[in-house]
C-alpha cells in the first residue's frame, strides 16, 4: 500500500504508509558551507548575501546564483569557502574595530606578498561589503594594511579577510546569465494589481461590512 495524496506528485512518489525509523544524518551530509557576495551593479562593491551548503566551489556558485540572485539586479557573484574567511572580533556600533584590536604576530608568512580581499561591516545586523584589496604576506599583515588603507572611514564593527586566490569570481562573459532578471515580473509584487477589479466589484455590489 502506498500513500494517496491530494498532491499528484506525492502520490507518484509511492510513499509507504508506514515509514521506517530513520538514521541520524552523518556528519557533512549537507556539505560544508560557502559564503556568497553579490554585486548589484557595475562598479558597486560586492556585498555579503549569505551562505550555501555545497560540495565544492563550482557547485556553490550554481547554488548561490539562484538562492541569492534570482531577484533584484545583479551583475556578479563571489564565492568563498567559509573556512577561508578570517574574522576579527566585533566592536560595538559606532566604534571602529581597528582601533580596539591588537593584531597578533602571524604564525606563518608567505615568501611573496599576495592579494587579500577586505570586507567591512559598518553596523551590526547589516551585511559586510567589500572595502578593497591589499597585498600582504599573512592575514595579520593584510589586516594592518587594511587598517592603513581603509581603516579610517567611519565606524567599522567587524572585518573579514580572505586571500584573493580563495575567491571564486563570476566571469565577465557570464554577465548575460543575469540580464533577464529584471524582466521576471511574475515573481515581483509589482506585477499584481487588482484595485480595478475590487473597485468594480464594490460598485456592482455596494457591499458594506456586516
Amino acid at each position, binding site marked *: 500500500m502506498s*500513500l494517496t495524496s*491530494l498532491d499528484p506528485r506525492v502520490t507518484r512518489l509511492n510513499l509507504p504508509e508506514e515509514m521506517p525509523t530513520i538514521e*541520524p544524518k552523518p556528519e557533512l551530509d549537507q556539505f560544508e*558551507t560557502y559564503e556568497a557576495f553579490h554585486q548589484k551593479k557595475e562598479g558597486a562593491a560586492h556585498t555579503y548575501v549569505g551562505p550555501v*551548503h555545497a560540495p565544492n566551489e563550482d557547485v556553490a556558485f550554481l547554488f548561490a546564483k539562484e538562492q541569492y540572485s534570482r531577484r533584484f539586479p545583479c551583475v556578479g557573484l563571489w564565492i568563498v569557502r*567559509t573556512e577561508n574567511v578570517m574574522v576579527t572580533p*566585533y566592536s560595538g556600533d559606532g566604534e571602529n574595530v581597528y582601533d580596539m584590536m591588537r593584531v597578533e604576530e602571524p604564525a606563518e608568512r608567505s615568501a611573496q606578498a599576495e592579494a587579500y580581499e577586505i570586507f567591512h561591516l559598518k553596523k551590526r545586523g547589516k551585511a559586510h561589503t567589500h572595502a578593497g584589496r591589499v597585498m600582504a604576506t599573512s592575514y595579520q599583515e593584510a589586516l594592518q594594511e587594511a587598517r592603513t588603507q581603509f581603516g579610517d572611514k567611519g565606524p567599522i564593527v567587524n572585518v573579514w579577510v580572505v586571500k584573493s586566490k580563495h575567491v571564486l569570481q563570476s566571469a565577465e562573459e557570464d554577465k548575460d546569465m543575469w540580464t533577464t532578471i529584471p524582466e521576471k515580473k511574475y515573481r515581483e509584487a509589482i506585477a499584481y494589481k487588482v484595485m480595478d*477589479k475590487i473597485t468594480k466589484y464594490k460598485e456592482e455590489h455596494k457591499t458594506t461590512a456586516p
Partner: protein
Amino acid sequence: MYGGGNVFEATKFDDLQTEDPVKLAEFEARIARGEKIEPNDWMPQLYRKQLIRMIEQHAHSEIIGALPEGTWITRAPGFRRKMAQMAKVQDEVGHAQLLYSAAETLGKTREQMLTDLINGKSKYSNVFNYPAFTWADSNIISWLIDAGAIVNQMANAKGSYGPYSRALERICAEEAFHLKYGHDAVVHMATGTPKQREMIQAALNRWWPPIMTFFGPSDKMSTHTETLMRWKVKMASNDECRQQFLDMYVPKIWELGLTVPDPKLKKNMETGQWEYTEPDWDEFKRVINGDGPCNAERLAVRRTAEERGAWVRRALLNPKAKYVRPLA
C-alpha cells in the same frame, strides 16, 4: 511562512543565575541600546537555546509550508499562475535555506535540524498539517497565511539577533510578492464566475479556523516571557499579532463580499479590539502533537525527499571537508 505561535513554551534553561553577571549586563545593555547581537558575541544560554528553537521551527515551517501549495504546482491554471506558483513554492524552500543558515550560526548543524524534523522531534507551524483540497485553498494560503506570516516576521526582523534579522529582511521582501500574488488570485476567484466564487468561499471556510490559531494561544505572561521580550527575542505577543492581522485583512476579505465563518467576529469600537470565537485550542494541541489530517504525509514526504537524495549527497561528500559554521 510562520506565525510563531507555538514557540515559547517554558524550557529548562530559564536559570540565569549561572550566567556571568558582568557579561550578562553588557549583553543586556547592548540590546537596550538597540544594537544587534552577532554570532561571535557572548550570549546567555537561554538566549541561544530559544533562538535556535525559534529559528529552527521557522525554517521547518518554510520547508513543510512548501507542501500544501506544492499540491497545486502542476495544476496552476494558465501561464501567469503556473510560473508564479512555482516561484512562490520555490521561495518557501529558499526561506528554509536562509533560516537554517541563521540557526546554524548559533551552533546547531543543518544535519541535526533536518534529522529532528523528520523524526518528529521538532515542531513546525501547525497550519501546514491541513490539506489544500482545491486550487482555491492554495490561493487562501498564499494570501492569508503569508499575510499572517508577514505580521510575525516584520516584528521578528526588528529582533536582536543579527543573522535572523538579515534573513528576515530578505524573506519579508519576497513575502511581499506572495501576499500580492495570493491577493490577486483570491480577487480573481471572488470576482469571477459563480463556480470560482463558491470555490474560494469554501476554501476560506476551511482555512479560517487554522488561520485563527496561526499565531498561537494567548501568551501566559511569565518572567520567562518578559526576559525574552527584554532580549528582543519575542517581539510581539501572540494576541497582538492576531489583532494586527484581523485589522489588516478582515476588511479586505469583506470588501470582496466573502463571509468569514465566525458569527462572533467583529471589531469592538470601544476597545479597538477584535472579538471572535475562541479557537479550538484542544484541536490545536492535538494537531501539533501529530494527530492532524496531514502530519504523517508531510513528514513522510520530507523524509522520502531526504532518503532519495542521499545518494547525491554521499557521492559528492568531500571526506577532507571540515564543517565550519556559516559566518553571519
